[in-house]
């Protein structure tokens, strides 16, 4: 665990000292909220807030963490780290904490936009609840980001992650409830994530299904990540 914190420290420091990367990741979600919020005006401000909360976490996990993994996995430094007496766990903990901390900053800025610019009518308790669920979702999303990060090659990773980020974003709220899409959406992790957050507003929604789904995805992505990580070692 102590070593996990050390990993977190170096990931965090090298991110916050990389101003351009930080700027784009952290500015994007609040900006999106600002631009799209009028779509939901009067109708479903809660929904918008939830979607963008989750989206901001998802962006950190995919664009910052996942793409970061792809870019550095073949570096001399990453190879050097593999000669140190350390297994996967501290690195995993470090990356997880890294994702959580940046997501937290992101949620903070989205909240500020929601409260003080858009004047969305939410109370403090709701914000805390949404933020908690959003951060919880960082677990499967970070694992997904890392699994793809280790699988993708540096040339294609930007397009892969951008596409995935968009698909998961729209998949989280825009699929119709009926027909084939109504079935498909149940298998989309970000949709279940939105449902979980929404259960705070609509108490009739059961949290069991989304929880099971997200947990299952977490294990699956963890498995995938381990596989991909090991594969990069074998030539």
């Amino acid at each position: 665990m102590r070593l996990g914190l050390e990993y977190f420290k170096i990931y965090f420091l090298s991110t916050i000292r990389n101003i351009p990367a930080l700027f784009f990741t952290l500015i994007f979600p609040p900006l999106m909220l600002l631009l799209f919020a009028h779509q939901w005006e009067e109708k479903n401000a809660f929904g918008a807030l939830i979607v963008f909360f989750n989206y901001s976490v998802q962006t950190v996990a995919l664009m910052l963490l996942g793409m970061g993994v792809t870019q550095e996995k073949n570096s001399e430094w990453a190879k050097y780290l593999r000669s140190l007496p350390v297994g996967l766990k501290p690195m995993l903990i470090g990356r997880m904490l890294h994702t959580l901390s940046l997501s937290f900053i992101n949620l903070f800025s989205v909240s500020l936009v929601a409260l003080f610019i858009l004047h969305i009518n939410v109370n403090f308790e709701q914000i805390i609840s949404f933020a908690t669920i959003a951060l919880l979702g960082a677990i499967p999303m970070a694992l997904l980001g890392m699994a793809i990060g280790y699988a993708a090659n540096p040339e294609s990773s930007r397009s892969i992650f951008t596409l995935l980020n968009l698909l998961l974003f729209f998949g989280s709220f825009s699929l119709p409830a009926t027909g084939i899409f109504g079935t498909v959406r149940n298998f989309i992790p970000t949709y279940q994530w939105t449902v979980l957050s929404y259960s705070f507003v609509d108490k009739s929604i059961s949290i069991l299904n989304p929880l099971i789904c997200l947990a299952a995805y977490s294990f699956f992505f963890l498995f995938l990540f381990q596989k991909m990580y090991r594969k990069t070692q074998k030539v």
Partner: protein
Amino acid sequence: MKQDFILEFKNITKNYGKINIIKNLNLNISHNEVIGLLGVNGAGKTTTIKMMLGQEIPTTGKIKLFGKNPTNPESRIHIGSTPQNIEFPEGLKTLEIIQFVQAHYPNPLPIQEMVEKFGLTNFLELKASKLSGGQKRRLALALAFIGNPKIVFLDEPTTGLDVEARKILWEVIKDYKNKGKTIFLTTHYLEEIEQIATRILFLQKGEIIADESVEGLQKLANSTQSKVSFDCGTECSFEGFQTIDSVINKNRNYTLITKNSDALIYELVKHNIPFSNLQIKKENLESAFLNLSKGE
């Protein structure tokens, strides 16, 4: 009881794709050795070290590092290494990197000690990625020793080091050996390791063609020869000399190759050769190496 080796290579081969890089390598490394691995560019030195560290997996054969597979992190608790090339991540300061690497080891050396030894004091607050090439190498060396490992692997450690830093490195290696530890290093600068190496390995075309002490190697390379050179005011003739193998004459600067320099000097004096600026050069490892490589 079986001697406990730090590292064992059993019938190791390594291919990259279809190309065979290492052929049937067998090797044991014990405590308290300084081993120099020599070989021309592309001989497979770095590949060998990478397999020792678990960064590359052999195509066939078995490697044991402290009795375990090197890909198992536990096997690497007592090792340190400096890779041939290293780049540090953007944004991290020298001190932060040292602290980070040190945190991986159960009984590390004090940071201060390593920082002073490798002359890093003035760079601690600088970004490691912005250091000069030689400064980066020094940092990488400090990282190899910081964990107080039982064996240190150094892949061409002197590349890019200035004279001062080289001297320091050889001192550190000597001290380290005196503590009973093992150093495994590769280099192209043969002269510098003949002073400290207890064992020399020659790697050629993926095979170890010699595994010897420095003296053993010189014998092996038929290298009891010395070069005796001097200036001579007049043309000299060496007729009747018993001890000369060959003569090179460059503008009355003579170089004589001999197997017995003492006897040759005696003969020079006996024949009243008017020599000046006499120099005697024992065959060094470098020429031994060349002889050996030529002999295939």
